Structures are given as C-alpha cells and as structure tokens.
C-alpha cells in the first residue's frame, strides 16, 4: 500500500504560523487599500468644501454689491419723482416733466430691479397702492438661494469629511492592533511548547478581532445628502427671504422627502412654520430635528421657546437646562434668563429669582472678561441681554392686560398672576438696572445717594414752531401724530447729585431704540428743578407705535412712562406718485427723448 505524501513539512505549527503571517500581510494590504480610499475621499471633500465656500462668499459679496448699487438707483428714482411732484404741484409742469423723464427713461433703464418682475410702477399705481421694487425677490434670485445651496454643500461636505476622518483614525488604530498581532505570531516561532501556543492564540485572536473591526468600519455608511435635497432646501431659503413662507415650507418638505435624515431642513421648516404662526407644526419639526442633534443650541433655543409660547413650561425648562450644560457663556446666560421666565410662568418663585441672579452674574462675568481683554461685547449680545428684559415685560403685560403676544396663552399663566406678577416686575427692574450698570460700569452695590433722587411724574409734550424756528404752541399728552418731529420728556426732580449719570432710555414697540437715548453727567447745583429731555429723532418724523421711556440715575430705575405715536394719512413722502394725473402725465405727455432724435439724425 502506497503511503500518502504529507501536504506540509514536518513542523506543522511553524508552517501554520507562517501561513497566518502571509494572510495577515494580505489583511494589512487590504487595510492600507481601504485607508487609502478613505484619505482620497477626504481630500476630495476638502477640495469641494473650499470651492463651495469661495463660491458662496463670492456670490454673496457680488449680490450685495449689486443690490446696494440698484438700491441707490431706486433712491435717485424716488428723488426725481418727489421733485417732479413738487414742481407739478407748484405749477411748473415743464420742470415736472423733466424730472419724470429722468426717472422713467434714464434711471429705470439702469437697474434690473426697476423693471418687471421686480417692479411695475404703472400697475402698482393703477391699483391705488404704491409697491416699491421687490428687492427681497431680487436678492433671493441673485444670491440668497445660490449662497444657501453652497453653504449647505459646505456643511454636508464637512459632515462627510468628519465621518471619513473618524474612519481613517479607526483604520490607523487597527493597523497598530494588527502590528501587535503580527509581533505575537512572529515571536511564537522562536519559543517552544505551551507558551508558543498561548502567544500564537493571542496573536490569532487579535488578528481576528482587527479583521472584524476592519469590516465593520468599512461597511459603515457615510450620511451624504443628495444634491437635489440641498437644492430644494436652498430654494426654500430663497422663498423664505422673499417672505413667501407657504412656498418655502413646500420646498423644505420636498428636501425632507428626498432626504428624510436632513435635519437642518426640519429645523428650517420649523422656523418657517413659527414665522407663519403655526407653533404646533413648528414644535413638531424642531423636535424631529432635535432628536438627532441634541448639541445644536440654536435648535434647542428655538424648540424651548416654542414650548414656552405654547405653555409647555416643564419641557422648555428641561431644554434650557440642557442648553446651559452644553452651550458657551452667552448661551448659559440666555438659558438662565429664559429659565427665569419659565419658572415665573410656572409659579416657582425661588427658582425664578435664582435663575435671574445667575443670568445677571453670568452677563457681568462675560462683560468683565471682555473688558479685561480690551474688547466689548457685540451689539447682538447686548440685544440678547436686552431681550431678556423685554420678554419679562411681555409676560407682565400678558398678566396685566391679558394681551399675550409672544408669550404663553393667558389661561396657562393666569393662575400665577397675583403671586408672580410683582416678582416679575421686581426681576424686570433688577435686570434693567443691571444692564445699565454693566453698560456704564457702575457699581450697583456701592453706597450711593441714588435713593434720594426722585422723579414724581413724567410729562410728554411737543413744540410747534413757525417758519423761523420760534416756538408758537405746545401740545401735551400721551398720544401724538407721526407728523411731529420733536417730543420733550419733562419731569420735576429732586435729590439729584452732581456727577451722577442720568440716562433716558426709549423703547419703540418693546425694543430699545439706542439712537433716541439721552445720557447726562448731572451738573453741579441742580439738586431739584424741572428737567426737559428731548427725544431726538435727528430731524426725522417719528415712526408710529408705542413708546416707553425709562429714567435711570446711576443705573437705578427711578421713573418710567409711555406714550403712543399714531399714523397720519399723508405721512408718505411718495404719496404724490399715486396721483392718477401724475401717472398719465408720465405715460402720455413725456417729452421726446433727445437721444432718440440724435440717433435718427445720425441715420
């Protein structure tokens, strides 16, 4: 009987390990191949990111340059029409014709925004309502949509890049693990008996583990959004910029249909619903977006605010607390103020006081840190701090007048009114005083003579002047027409000290108007008397709306009151344009264009 030949040489262990080493060599080559593909894809993404970023900035910059230039053309067009109307009214029809001609034949030709679809002067005049050029639509068509698309591509590429980077790091880690396995296997050849089996087994286990991990990392998908979805999203942003929220929602929905994992589209659609006043749908979208991104503080703030406005205070509190945990210093400050608001609405007095104290301390810390670094906090950050006081005033107003715009429904907060309203007023005053103290670096805790400063009542009046500027009459009250260009705030005072900082803040429709502020370093010798602070509109007529005036002495709020400015019928400087005779003149009786004549002569 013929003896069969063995397949391998005698030392089976050595041969098996040698074969394993060869297999590991293949495994490491595959690892290198996969890692190479990942690095290649990362580089490509990086390039696209830069290209899209440059394109986005370019389109935006050029779009803004164009819009600004065409806005100036429109301003000149308006100016020409205004002069023409004046000339026409004063009887100089010829002069009026000249200005209309310039507006219609020269300026309207220079700008794409002065022609349909952005502007149709004759149609808007015929309908009886003047419609200025639709600059928002022009901006949307020129750069808003394309910029949004490029920005989305940048964000998407960055996200994919980060996922690929994570893969690359894990592949690198696995290469190290594989090297350890190789070392163990190789070393097992040099030793004998039991230890070599143990060493080889460990090596084999490590190699099998790294192989399994390699496959897992390789098959892990990257979430790359389809370009069609991003295009639909960008169209939505463009429509939203134009003010067409219904169409914007349609486009955001299309983006979501194309890419159900497109959470920014949910967030943006939520914002559009919110602007439309559909809080329920907005909340649903914000929640869907937040389920997958609990670290986006802007999203958390939108969702928390939507919950608050619907009266779901506990949900709002939970989100603000989470935002405060993960956010930067500004988010923490803002979260504290909003927590205070929620606690007031919930009737939790102590928590509300704590939250406002924390918010004020945080704001103080931020401002002190910035000033120590030779910087100031930005206008938008001041706005956030002011907004906290404004929100508080809205809540107080909801309790007082049952006028609950921008606040939770009255029935949700009414239970707490008796107890919480005085607390809200107290917090509002403290917050406003802290804001002024922070802005002018006044130490509120220092012992001052402020408690002696007193203003009993504020009066508002306007002065009418003759052509030479001499006062001829005054009108006192709490309601003025927007035809006026001056309002005086008068108040009897006593106990004012020399060197004290006296500040008058003016709010228009709940928002402070910094240009209307008045700041005085109080002069010596004026301990008591009657002060007159003009609200300086810079020669412009007052915008209609609710005005609120606050008087601070060394950052202590000592008096406040309000008045309203009501709109009048002929406050529109463009009203002359609506005169049908003017339009007829413009259309039918325009003088011949001398250039056309010159062109014919040349022929």
């Amino acid at each position, binding site marked *: 009987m013929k003896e069969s030949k063995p397949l391998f040489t005698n030392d089976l262990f050595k041969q098996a390990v040698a074969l394993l080493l*060869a297999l590991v060599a293949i495994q490491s080559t595959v690892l290198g191949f996969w890692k190479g593909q990942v690095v290649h894809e990362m*580089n490509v993404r990086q390039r696209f990111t830069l290209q899209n970023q440059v394109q986005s*900035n370019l389109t935006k*910059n050029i779009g803004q340059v164009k819009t600004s230039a065409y806005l*100036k053309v429109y301003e000149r067009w308006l100016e020409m029409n205004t002069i023409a109307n004046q000339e026409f009214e004063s009887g100089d029809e010829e002069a009026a014709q000249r200005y209309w001609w310039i507006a219609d034949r020269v300026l309207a*030709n220079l700008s794409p925004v002065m022609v349909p679809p952005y502007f149709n002067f004759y149609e808007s005049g015929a309908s009886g309502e003047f419609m200025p050029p639709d600059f928002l639509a022009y901006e949307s068509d020129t750069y808003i949509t394309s910029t949004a698309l490029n920005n989305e591509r940048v964000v998407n590429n960055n996200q994919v890049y980060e996922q690929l980077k994570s893969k690359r790091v894990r592949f690198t880690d696995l290469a190290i693990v594989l090297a350890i396995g190789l070392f163990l296997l190789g070393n097992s050849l040099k030793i004998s008996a039991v230890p070599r089996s143990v060493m080889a087994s460990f090596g084999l286990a490590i190699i099998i583990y790294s192989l399994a991990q390699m496959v897992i990392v390789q098959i892990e998908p990257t979430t790359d959004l389809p370009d069609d979805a991003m295009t639909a999203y960008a169209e939505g942003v463009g429509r939203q910029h134009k003010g067409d929220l219904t169409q914007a929602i349609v486009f955001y929905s299309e983006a979501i249909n194309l890419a159900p994992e497109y959470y920014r589209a949910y967030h943006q659609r939520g914002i559009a619903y919110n602007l439309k006043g559909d809080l329920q749908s907005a909340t649903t979208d914000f929640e869907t977006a937040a389920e997958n991104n609990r670290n986006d503080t802007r999203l958390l703030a939108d969702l928390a605010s939507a919950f608050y406005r619907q009266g779901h205070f506990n949900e709002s509190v939970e989100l603000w607390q989470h935002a405060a945990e993960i956010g930067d210093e500004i988010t923490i400050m803002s979260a504290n103020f909003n927590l205070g608001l929620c606690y007031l609405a919930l009737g939790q007095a102590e928590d509300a006081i704590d939250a406002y104290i924390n918010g004020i301390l945080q704001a103080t810390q931020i401002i002190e840190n910035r000033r120590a670094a030779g910087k100031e906090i930005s206008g938008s950050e001041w706005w956030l701090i002011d907004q906290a006081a404004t929100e508080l005033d809205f809540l107080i107003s909801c309790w007082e007048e049952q006028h609950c715009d921008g606040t939770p429904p009255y029935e949700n907060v009414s239970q707490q009114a008796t107890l919480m309203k005085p607390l809200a007023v107290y917090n509002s005053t403290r917050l406003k005083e802290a804001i002024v103290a922070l802005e002018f670096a006044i130490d509120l805790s220092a012992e001052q003579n402020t408690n002696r400063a007193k203003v009993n009542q504020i009066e508002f009046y306007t002065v009418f002047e003759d052509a030479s500027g001499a006062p001829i009459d005054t009108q006192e009250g709490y309601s003025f027409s927007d035809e006026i260009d001056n309002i005086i705030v008068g108040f009897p005072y006593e106990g004012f000290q020399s060197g004290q900082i006296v500040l008058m803040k003016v709010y228009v429709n709940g928002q402070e108007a910094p240009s209307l502020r008045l700041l005085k370093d109080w002069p010596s010798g004026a301990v008591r008397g009657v002060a007159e602070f003009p609200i300086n509109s810079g020669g412009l007529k007052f915008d209609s709306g609710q005005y609120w005036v606050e008087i601070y002495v060394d950052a202590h709020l000592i008096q406040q009151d309000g008045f309203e400015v009501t709109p009048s019928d002929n406050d529109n400087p463009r009203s002359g344009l609506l005169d049908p005779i003017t339009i007829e003149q413009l259309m039918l009786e325009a003088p011949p264009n*001398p250039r056309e004549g010159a062109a014919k002569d040349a022929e």
Partner: protein
Amino acid sequence: MNELVTKIDKFLREKLLPELNFQLLLVLLIVISAFMTTQANSLATRSMNGAEIDEFSGSAAQISAGNTETLNHFKVFDHFMSYMEFAIQDEMVRLYDSTLESAPTDKARLLIKQREQAILLAMNARAFFPGKYVNPDGTYNLDRELGELWAEESLIQNLDPSNYYIQADDKRARFLALNPLPLLGALALLTFALIQAMHEDRKVLRYILTFVGALILLVFIGIYLFVRANYG
C-alpha cells in the same frame, strides 16, 4: 572514499541542487513581489501627495480669483454709480436744451443757469468712469468692463484654478489605479509562502502554485507599468 564522493555527488545532482534552485527561484520571486509592492505603494503615495500640492495651488488660485472678482465688482459698480450721476445730469442738459428755444426770457435765464449747473455736475461725474463702456442706448456695459478688468488682472496673477485641478485629478486617478495593486503583490507573496510551507515531495502542486504566483506577479508588474505610463 570514491564511493562516498560519488554518493554525495549523486545526492547533490538528484536531490539537493534542484531543490536549491527551486528555493532560489522562490526567494527571487518573493523579493520581486516585495519590491514591486513597495514601488506601487510608494508611487501611489507620491501621486496622492502630488495631487494635494496641485489642489493647494488650485485653491490659492481660486481664492485669488474670488477676491479679484469681488474687488472688480466694487470698482465697476463705483463707476456705474458715477455714470448714473452723469446720465442724470447729461439728460437734464439735453432736456433744458429742448425747452430753452420756446421758453420766455425770464424763464430762459433760470433754465440757462440750471443747464450750466447740470453741465458742471455731469463733468464732475464724468471724471469717475471710463466712457468706453457706455452703450448707445444709454445703459452701462457692466459685463464688458468686468471682463476687461479680469483679463488685465489675469496677466498679473494666476486666476485659473482649473489647470491645477486637472493635474490633481490626473494624479488622483493614478492613485486610485495604484491603490489596489499591493493586494496583488500580497496575494503573490501568500502563494510563495504557501509553497515554502509545503512538503518538498509535493512537486506538482508546488510547481502549479509557483506558476500561479508568478502569473499574479506578472499581471501586477504589467498593470503597474501600464498605470505608470498612462496615468498622470
């Protein structure tokens, strides 16, 4: 003694020398496989690095192009604003001219004064834009001026990233073609390792595997040379 020498000689001729030759061949094939794998890997890495350098140059050109286009727009729209001012005043002058003939004396005096004022304002504005871009219909040829400014700037600095990106794409294509090649090298190495582990009496199987390994190596070298000659 002679018998012993004859036996050794016979052993060497029949057993050891063929095996030695075969082992030598295997070692040679393994060395070639390892060398080619290293070469392919090295060229792939160099291709990727080259692509990155080209992309960097492309990015720099693209950023320069973006800055240039933005600045050009600022410049051209400044000219456009000046032209608007000129066009208003120039047209005013023409309108005054057309009404002057029929105007009564006292009014004509005022119109002449206004006309002179418009001429001066037009002259002032005229200094701030190049006239060659004004179209016969009174519009301003923004695109033409932008195009010419771009052309002038492109003489001074490189504003075209496309060449760099094309080169980068070529190198990336070479990388993508080379990246899987080490797999073939590793496969050939595995084959040769398997042969070495086999019992020397398994001659047929060993020769077949040697042929397969050598074939893989040849394909590897062929692809490598092809990629080297045709990509990037």
